[in-house]
């Protein structure tokens, strides 16, 4: 199959990437402001800190999903004809949802975090007025509906072309002994994301709708533990899926650069099926300190969180190493970032797996260790993949060239990101709590290291974005997919 991406979809992908790069910079600045405040380098009120924290958490996961969607759509278009209207609907609903969330935070002072743990939104609504909570929860709902529409459409397309999500995940090869290779990696990953993220979004929609009803009519209540399950089933899976969408670019681009096929063999398909199952189950590691949860469920949280590291460590990252090994491939902006992003993904998984150990979690849950691990995974993994794709897109669709400044920016970004996540992990190691507006003196030094590292990361992100926008000028809007190879 060799389809061409619809010109309108290509334009929409550009919009996705443009919004992603700008929001990314803004959210990074928010992150630096929080660290500077904790590090006593500036002073903002706790109310402002928590508002910024809410915007930062929600915004970062949101833009990672937006960037991931652009990658998924772009490469999936190689194999399946897709209707650009759905991508546009997703984009419009995303922007509508985000606008509502921003109004909630910055106009109506909503600051309950992306976690919005029930009954916190109702409690805040009583204190600060209902508008903030209602705008935030409704905005998240609108955003989620946009993604749900996208996944339902993609499910229908995969069913039409491949005969169902099971076949798209290679079940006929795994279970029925069919010989040969499964569908392209982009299709396998899309099927996985459809299953996991639709489940996440339905869980999210349930808790969001119930919270809204509770605010409007307090007589209708919900069990707080069930609500927490639904919130984390939503948040953890959704955040997780951003990398499963973005990694499609790694498969496609490294394969192209090395001129080596990255085929979906049986082990590859088993790994992706395991990821599908484990990604649905391991959110329970967020509830390891809720002792009221049945013990067997908590033990599953530990065991399967360990197991969820295996597909990426043994198949995806290992596959990336194998494909690059003695390939004489060209190192440029895209290939460097995709290679480093696999390092970032696995490096972020290591402290996550350690923290999923119940006895470790007992003294590290909700310390800065937790943002330490997911900033590694998000910043050096997902975001690196998205930025790498921005360059790849401009080079393939236009004529962007790798320059010395690009090598410098990549080095700047990854060096300071190492310092940045190191400061978080160290702070977690000395028990500094997360989501605290003000820190005790013994925690301040790590915040300062994090803030200074963060400033350099913002500088790198600004250069990345400037290069992306300048490269866009050469992108022809009517050029068919893969006018030329970026690897050449």
């Amino acid at each position, binding site marked *: 199959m060799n389809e061409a991406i619809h010109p309108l979809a290509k334009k929409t992908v550009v919009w996705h990437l443009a919004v992603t790069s700008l929001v990314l910079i803004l959210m990074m600045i928010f992150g630096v402001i929080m660290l500077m405040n904790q590090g006593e380098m500036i002073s903002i009120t*706790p109310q402002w800190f*928590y508002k910024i924290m809410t915007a930062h958490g929600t915004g970062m996961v949101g833009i990672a999903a937006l960037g991931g969607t652009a990658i998924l759509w772009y490469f999936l278009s190689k194999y399946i004809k897709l209707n650009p209207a759905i991508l546009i609907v997703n984009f419009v609903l995303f922007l509508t949802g985000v606008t509502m969330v921003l109004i909630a935070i910055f106009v109506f002072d909503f*600051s*309950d*975090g992306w*976690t919005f*743990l029930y*009954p*916190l939104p109702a*409690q*805040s609504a009583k204190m600060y007025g209902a508008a903030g909570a209602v705008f935030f929860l409704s905005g998240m709902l609108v955003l989620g509906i946009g993604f749900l529409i996208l996944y339902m459409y993609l499910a229908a397309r995969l069913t039409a072309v491949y005969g169902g999500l099971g076949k798209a995940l290679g079940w006929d090869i795994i279970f029925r002994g069919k010989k040969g290779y499964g569908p392209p990696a982009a299709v396998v990953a899309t099927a996985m994301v459809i299953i996991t993220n639709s489940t996440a979004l339905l869980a999210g929609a349930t808790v969001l709708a119930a919270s809204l009803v509770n605010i409007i009519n307090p007589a209708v209540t919900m069990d*707080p*533990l069930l609500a*927490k399950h639904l919130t984390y089933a939503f948040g953890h899976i959704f955040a997780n899926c951003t990398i499963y969408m973005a990694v499609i670019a790694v498969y496609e681009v490294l394969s192209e650069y090395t001129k080596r096929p990255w085929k979906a063999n049986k082990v590859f398909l088993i790994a992706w099926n395991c990821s599908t199952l484990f990604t649905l189950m391991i959110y329970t590691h967020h509830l390891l*300190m*809720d*002792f*009221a949860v049945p013990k067997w469920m*908590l033990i599953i949280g*530990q065991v399967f969180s*360990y197991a969820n590291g*295996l597909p990426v*460590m*043994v198949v995806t990252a290992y596959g990336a*190493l*194998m494909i*690059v*090994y*003695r*390939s*004489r*491939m060209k*190192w440029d902006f895209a290939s460097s970032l995709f*290679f480093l992003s*696999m*390092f970032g993904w*696995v*490096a972020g998984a*290591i*402290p996550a797996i*350690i923290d999923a*150990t*119940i*006895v*470790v979690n*007992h*003294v*590290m*849950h*909700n*310390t800065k*260790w937790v943002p330490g691990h997911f900033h590694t995974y998000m910043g050096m993994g997902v975001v690196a993949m998205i930025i790498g794709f921005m360059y790849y897109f401009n080079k393939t669709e236009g004529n962007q060239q790798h320059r010395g400044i690009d090598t410098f920016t990549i080095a700047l970004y990854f060096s300071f990101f190492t310092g940045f996540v190191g400061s978080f*992990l160290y702070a977690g*190691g*000395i*028990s500094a*709590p997360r989501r*605290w*507006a*003000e820190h005790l003196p013994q925690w301040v030094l790590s915040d300062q290291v994090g803030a200074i590292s963060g400033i350099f990361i913002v500088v790198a992100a600004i250069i990345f974005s400037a290069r992306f926008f300048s490269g866009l000028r050469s992108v022809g809007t009517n050029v068919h997919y893969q006018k030329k190879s970026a690897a050449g």
Partner: protein
Amino acid sequence: MYQQIAMYATVFFVFLLGLAFAFVYGESKRSGEYSTIQEKGYKIRKFYFLGLIAIMAFATVMTLGRLPYDSNQAEAEGLNETKAVKVTGVQYAWEMSEETFKAGDKVQFDVTASDVTHGFGLYNENMELVAQTQAMPGYTNTVYYTFKEPGTYQILCLEYCSAGHHVMVKEIVVEPEGGASDE
């Protein structure tokens, strides 16, 4: 202890990972037949996979016997009786049925919340987190801790509970065994 293990283990494994990526990057400048690389690579992968499984199985066996909510261990050790203390989190304070303890006391904290979800984080005098559970309305989570050392301990809120989250701190005093006059 677990914090140190977590930090050293992370540095060690990330270092190994970095070495692997650096090695492959170095080798990327040479060329090789991919089918041969695949053949060797898949063989190495088997051992790598089994090695990871072994490490994870070892960690699972070593740690699942020490779950923090198992009272068995607390009951089996020590001479004193377990002291039950009711703890309630509220925006933005900790209410406790008992606030002073003695070194050697084995305490059963029955933790709940009266408004929204909070996090019960017990810190020792060196501000190291020593025990934790969630304080959730409608549920009682029980966590056990034996105060081995006297000193001023603190309970910090570790689950975001709105704008006063960081001021939700309570000091508790643990006197030396036999009473404060021992000092």
